[in-house]
């Protein structure tokens, strides 16, 4: 052991002139639920296909359990894939679909039958074995695709936006189901998604990708609370970006002068120098209104969204803040009105300085 389940070393993939993936290093640990998250066209699916062996990297190498994959074709790799459109074989029954991998490995009939039964049981689809894929609902087809992959007991299961085609409610249910399955079988999952909420809910760790590069790798909490780039801060959840120059630094706390007029306190992990350009990220839910905050703004818009109220506060001519306040006990709610002046504040530890 000791080897990571999957390791990508300086992997680059070019399609003609276009770099789909450029110089990626990743280490996916054994038993992890690892997500590749990014907007469409960011290279996450290509990365998954490189691990599966459908694409060969232009440069670099993929190691699975420490073994170099080089030019190994997909059918010789100890991984299985759940495809976005499920790719169930329409001319075979559910049982035949699930048994396909075992048949290719020449597992004997009795054992195949037992394992197929177990796999269908595991995805909660017993008694469906004799049906054909088109007789099943989208959610059921999804489960068959999972069973067909998991029955082979792969070292790594690759999932390419497997819940993309399902409606919201079913998707939520399948997210929990996938999480349950993963902890049950203990197999490493590499999960591709463009849905940040899905990634945050399910993953042990997330790699945020954009333009073929990995921008940040970390746990959901790290990614959300300590984004290292404006893109990550913006892509994961909602965030306010304030731009300005460094005014003062005291240890890990800095004062950034936003738009040359508004001093904002924020946490920094960087060595900053006076006058340097910098950005500050603050999550809308970390900001409090009233309570004698250090800044003054004017309420521009109030949107009531059930559990929360969302305010848009103009701080300076070029800067507005989005603020989310939870609607707790109705007596305690003080709804601000549009046009009202309000003080705005946050704990300096909740705001993060970014430099480009």
């Amino acid at each position: 052991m000791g080897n990571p389940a999957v390791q990508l070393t300086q992997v680059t993939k070019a399609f003609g002139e276009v770099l789909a993936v450029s110089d990626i290093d990743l280490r996916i640990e054994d038993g992890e639920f690892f997500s590749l998250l990014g907007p469409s066209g960011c290279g996450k699916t290509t990365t998954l296909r490189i691990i599966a062996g459908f694409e060969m990297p232009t440069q670099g190498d993929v190691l699975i359990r420490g073994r170099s994959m080089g030019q190994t074709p997909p059918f010789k790799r100890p991984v299985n894939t759940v495809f976005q459109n499920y790719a169930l074989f329409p001319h075979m029954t559910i049982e035949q679909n699930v048994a396909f991998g075992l048949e290719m490995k020449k597992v004997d009939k009795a054992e195949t039958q037992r394992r197929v039964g177990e796999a269908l049981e595991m995805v909660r689809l017993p008694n469906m074995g004799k049906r054909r894929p088109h007789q099943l609902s989208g959610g059921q087809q999804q489960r068959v695709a999972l069973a067909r992959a998991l029955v082979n007991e792969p070292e790594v299961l690759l999932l390419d936006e497997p819940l993309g085609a399902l409606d919201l409610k079913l998707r939520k249910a399948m997210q929990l189901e996938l999480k349950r399955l993963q902890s049950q079988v203990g197999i490493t999952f590499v999960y591709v998604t463009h849905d940040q909420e899905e990634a945050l809910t399910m993953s042990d760790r997330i790699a945020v990708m954009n333009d073929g590069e990995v921008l940040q790798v970390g746990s959901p909490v790290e990614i959300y609370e300590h984004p290292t780039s404006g893109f990550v801060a913006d892509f994961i959840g909602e965030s306010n970006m304030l731009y300005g120059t460094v005014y003062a630094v005291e240890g890990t706390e800095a004062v950034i002068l936003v738009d040359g007029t508004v001093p904002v306190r924020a946490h920094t992990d960087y060595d900053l120098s006076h006058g340097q350009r910098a950005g500050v990220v603050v999550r809308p839910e970390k900001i409090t209104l009233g309570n004698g905050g250090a800044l003054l703004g004017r309420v521009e818009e109030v949107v009531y969204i059930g559990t929360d109220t969302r305010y848009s506060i103009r701080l300076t001519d070029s800067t507005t803040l989005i603020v989310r306040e939870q609607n707790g006990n109705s007596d305690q709610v003080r709804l601000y009105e549009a046009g009202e002046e309000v003080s705005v504040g946050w704990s300096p530890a909740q705001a993060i300085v970014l430099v480009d």
Partner: protein
Amino acid sequence: MASSSTTPSTQPVTEGHPTSRVSSGFASFWRQLGKFLLSGWALIFFVFLYLPIVTLIVFSFNESRFATEWSGFTLQWYGELFQNRLLGLALRNSLIVAFSTTLISTAIGTMVAVALERFDFKGKLPIDALLFLPIIIPDIAMGIMLLSFFALLNQSLGFVTIIIAHTAFNISFVAVIVRARMADIDPTLEEAANDLGANEWQAFWRVGFPLLLPGILAGALTAFTLSLDDYVVTFFVSGPGSTTLPVRVYGMIRRGVTPEINALSSLLLVASMILVVLSLALQRRSSRLNV
């Protein structure tokens, strides 16, 4: 409805009622008429198409030698047909040609379709365009071209030349039909098979081929029908002893249409229709399978 007329406020409604009923009556009249005319038109169309065929079949059972009068029912012509040694020979020749052609053109046509649909290579576009040429080229041009080609090669005319000629145009038909089927098959299916441990060969035979099979069979049936029915091209490239059924029949017609020919045409018609229906059924079945 009637009670509402008592209050003045609803009067416009009651006044409007009869007029709207009249107009809807008119509308339904026109709709009825349109329906009637349309179905009448369809009927005329089908009569136009099928009347000659029906006449042909009816007169194949006519006792009289002449197609101008009906003198009673007989199976005599069918009997004579089966006694005709030359026709029997021609039918045998036709079947030999049709089976060989179907086998060769289906194999090559399918490979062409797979290559064009699955792989990218230099010159794909021109090949793709050239594929349609044998379909749109006039039969007579094709016949003359092939004849001069064989003459150039000093190839004596016979089964070989007929089979080559039929294969030449049938490859295109098979390739086009198989390709249409192939475009409907999700390429990730074979990827999924690879992912589950099947090599390229296994993936094709276990997944690609079974899904393609209805298209291949439809292509084969089309090739068989076209080969069996072809007259023009065959006329140019057939030699002594290799006369096919359509060529033989044409030779007989030159001496006048006999009831024997009516009987033969009826049989050919029924056989062709069965093949066409089979081919269509296969294509429909396959498109349903992929939902």
